[in-house]
């Protein structure tokens, strides 16, 4: 884990992103922003019949962390199943970035993760599957 946020790994992804662009016919698309700073990320997934991510693309604008982390995430999730993404934790996402983020910057680093999670829940709901309960005793 690097202490330097702006090491080559992050900056490479920021300047030469993986799969920045759009799909012809995404299975699902979603976007969100971090209003505090204006970071915005739009994700598109192509999911095959085995619930596996065939392709993942992103678009957006904002700070290097928010955009590089989207790029890194796209690269990481291709080939994974929805089941695997359901188990995917914020901590793992932060590990993927290979840098230590302060609390303030974690919002940037986790923006694409949040969008991804929302999509997974939405797909679950579409299929009428149980969505994992969130906290509380409801």
């Amino acid at each position: 884990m690097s202490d330097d946020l702006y090491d080559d790994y992050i900056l490479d992804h920021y300047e030469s992103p993986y799969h920045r662009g759009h799909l012809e016919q995404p299975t699902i698309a979603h976007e969100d922003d971090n209003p505090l700073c204006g970071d915005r990320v739009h994700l598109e997934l192509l999911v095959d019949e085995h619930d596996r991510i065939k392709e993942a693309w992103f678009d957006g604008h904002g700070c290097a962390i928010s955009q590089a982390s989207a790029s890194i995430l796209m690269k990481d999730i291709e080939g994974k199943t929805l089941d695997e993404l359901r188990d995917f934790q914020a901590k793992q996402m932060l590990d993927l970035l290979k840098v230590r983020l302060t609390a303030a910057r974690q919002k940037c680093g986790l923006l694409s993760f949040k969008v991804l999670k929302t999509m997974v829940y939405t797909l679950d709901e579409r299929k009428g599957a149980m969505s994992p309960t969130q906290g509380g005793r409801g």
Partner: protein
Amino acid sequence: MSNAGLDSAYDVAAVRQDFPILDKPLPGGMPLVYLDNGATVQKPRSVIEKLVECYENYNANVHRGIHSLGDQVTTELEAAREKVRALLGADEVEEILFTSGTTMSINLVANAWGRKFLRAGDELLLNEMEHHANLVPWQQIAHERGAKLRFIPLTADGRLDLTALDDVLTDRTKLVAVTAMSNVLGTINPIGEIAARAHARGALVLVDAAQSVPHGLVNVNDPRVDFFAFSGHKVYGPTGIGVLYGRRKILEAMDPFLCGGNMIRRVRKESSDFAELPSKFEAGTIPIAQAIGLGAAIDYVQGLGFEAIAAHEHQLTARAFDQLQQIPGLQIVGPGLAHRGSIVSFTVEGVHPHDMAELLDRKGVAVRAGHHCTMPLHEWLGVTATTRASFALYNTHAEIDALCEAIQYARQVFRRK
């Protein structure tokens, strides 16, 4: 005679060393016998030092700055929030809102919940022992919304009369607001039974825990309640900070109360969307250093242990209860020891409470006199004012004796002829 600390789970003499003010003589040179703990308690060195640490090492605004100080202070603040969560046994840290005090916490609920969910004909269930902070906000919002106030009657000795609860708790009751511990009578109320019966009727339960938290009556899930309010300054923390616990689903359904920075998600010229919990209810710059100081206060009391604190305070209360009753003309208000926390309020024939407090002060004994922000209760008691002695973890048996001697002195002043 003094047996300070002899039979306590902690060494009271040593604990007193943690409180700088207890060591300092009053302006007149007399030692301070501080028995006005129900109003506010003294602060241990660790809390004062935490404030200094904060201002001298990581003073910055929270949640905003992308810089080292901002990161440190945010981490400290959120650690304090987690300490409060753990203290209250709340499920989630987002259910812990920092406010400026109990009064603000209750006003927040009365306004943000009441303005949205109260309808004409709805009822709020209160009682006459409530502090004005847990009465006047409900009067105002009930008036505005056309809702009605109902009151759980009191027993002759100053407890809630739960045998009459079903007369006043109806299907129209939307919320029961009740103090966990009376700041005058010392009565400890059976929150568990009240909450269970209120919930069975579909009513929410708000607990005014300003007096109970310092003594360890502090859990929001055992018994389960919906709102829970307390003040930092009464639990060995700084002034200017309070807590409102609210159950997530209810907080989410409510609209915000105060508006400004931090509580928004997106602001347009004409309208705005609101942020997630807890920010939604924390507009503007919150009392940052004070919240962090409250965290240190929680560490302090948990270091001693609530059980030990409560045991010690119970001994003090028992001693006071016993000795005060031997003073001619002295009348204690409220229930017996079994139902009472560490507060003893009383009247003394021929000596008005104000004169009493003033004369006790002359002996270095600080108590409070007046209606203690409970005018309806004093009306119910049939007196305009009482004198209140209230005990904290650092008080000693010798101080109880000093109180009783000072009361005798006051009686003599008024019987000089």
